[in-house]
């Protein structure tokens, strides 16, 4: 059952599909244009806890706790010719599914939940890394364009099986 108009749903859905394409094609600068100036980009640390203690997401410890300014630094770094971790670049595929769109708290915002499977290979070594997560996003329409206002990446991992997080999720 849709919680928004069909048009709004498809706009939000299309935003996520386009964003995945931009990231997989490694257009990091273009991706940065898709986030708002006051973006919050968060990936909390998850701890293996008992059922009664909740889902184990830390409120203080993060893998990413980014603002537009710090994302800018990360993109600038990738743009230098010395970002060894991404040169040669990772080959990634962002699989985005289970997209649910609800009205946001503000009129020009929507709350979007999606499932993410990030598949990644690097270098010439065998093997691949997989990161699975739910993403809770807030998208805001600015001058007719949807932009990412907030993203919380909720990992299905208490332990990351990847040697670094040099790509965006």
């Amino acid at each position, binding site marked *: 059952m849709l919680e928004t108009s069909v048009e709004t749903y498809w706009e939000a859905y299309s935003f996520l599909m386009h964003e995945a394409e931009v990231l997989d094609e490694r257009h990091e600068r273009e991706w940065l244009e898709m986030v708002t100036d006051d973006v919050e980009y968060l990936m909390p640390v998850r701890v293996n806890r008992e059922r009664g203690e909740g889902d184990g997401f830390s409120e203080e410890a993060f*893998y990413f706790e980014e603002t537009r*300014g*710090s994302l800018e630094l990360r993109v600038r770094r990738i743009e230098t010719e010395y*970002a*060894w971790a991404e040169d040669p670049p990772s080959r990634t595929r962002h699989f985005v599914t289970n997209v649910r769109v609800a009205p946001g708290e503000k009129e020009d915002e929507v709350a979007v939940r999606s499932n993410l499977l990030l598949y990644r290979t690097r270098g010439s070594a065998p093997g691949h890394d997989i990161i699975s997560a739910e993403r809770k996003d807030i998208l805001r329409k600015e001058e007719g364009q949807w932009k990412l206002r907030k993203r919380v990446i909720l990992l299905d991992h208490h332990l990351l099986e990847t040697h670094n997080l040099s790509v965006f999720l």
Partner: protein
Amino acid sequence: MIEQPTQGTYEILQDARQTLEEEGKLLAKVYNEPSIFELEAKKIFSKTWIFLAHESEIPWPGDYVLRRIINDSFIVTRDEDGEIHVLFNMCKHRGMQLCRSDAGNASHFRCPYHGYTFSNTGKLQGVPFEKEAYGPEGLDKDEYSMTAAPKMEIYKGLIFASLNPDVPPLEEYIGDMGWYLDFYLEKSPAGLEVIGAPQRWIMPADWKLAAENFIGDGYHTQSTHMSTIKAGIMRVKSPAYLKEGVQITASKHGCLFMGFPPGNYFNYPQSIVDSMLENLNEEQVEVLKENSIMPLNATVFPNLSFLHSSMAIEAEGQSIPYFTLRIWQPIGAGKMEIWSWCLVEQDAPEEFKKNSNRAFLTTFGASGTLEQDDAENWSGQTRVGAGEMAAQHYLNYSAGSAHVEPIPEDEWPGPGTAYPKNYVDFAQRHFWQTYFHFLLDGYNGS
């Protein structure tokens, strides 16, 4: 894999040690070799002190965290009287893993298998159907209480354990390195607190590569971390900013000092600067004030490292200082799990705590813009270290040997040995000498 019928792992290590001592070269094979990993588990990780947790991770009675030494799981608990225990996480009845959550608060641990119940001091408290199963006298509860780690000691908030009951006291083991660790641990009388929980991630890289990098590799920053200088994360004028400094070997450990503009103190808030100048001793303050240097990175042998730095979190932003503690936990030859904590002075301003953690995240940890590239190096070294060529390939650890002498004792206020440059390999060689010392301990060469 090294498999030569006439030459065992010990002989290879013996030769490697000799070549390091005599020529300042290291056999690349020691970076990644299964038979050497087996020895490391027995002769290093089962023999000496291993860091498990920071006291502030379990501040309240009943708090616990789960930690490991190689394959041995331990529950680090704080009991109802505030005492800390390190308990082997195995029920003495049928060997089931007692605690299966990584952190929490519990007065008791109940085994899921048959229901034996232990207090958070490790004492066996309850046995279901005790008389039916064990007769009218019941079970000897002391005999079947949880086993504590053979040794547990705390050094300035750092909780260590050892599987070796005869290990020397922790303070003696830290030894002269304590003078240098104070810069990380003693900046405020209020002590440090861990921000949240540690980041954990798996890296296909050997633990020793990270440990030797952190003990004193100032040389790599101008190449490995160039991107962060260009991007304005590391706010320095020249890529060679770490050329000048002081490298230290102290006890079995070592560290590297980094300079700061006089009076800047890594850009710490004034309240922390005041407390550090108050809380550290006269000689330590002399180093801060006169030399304008502070320890940047350090390793306490074998796998506990420290990093103290100051980096920007916004474009064109100011540097913000932070402190991260990490362990390089081996999970096999050429593979480790990294645990990385960010700590901050308990009495620091709240906003500073948040920004300090963000400065850490921007630069270190799994997503850190510096550590990303360290990961690329360490996993690459490990990958090419796996082959047959590495068994006959010797690596250069000679920087400084030709032209750098230690600072005379009367010109350096700290203990251990201080070298007046940073592009040197004295601390790294010290790491490997210590490593061979442990691995070959008890081996008589015959």
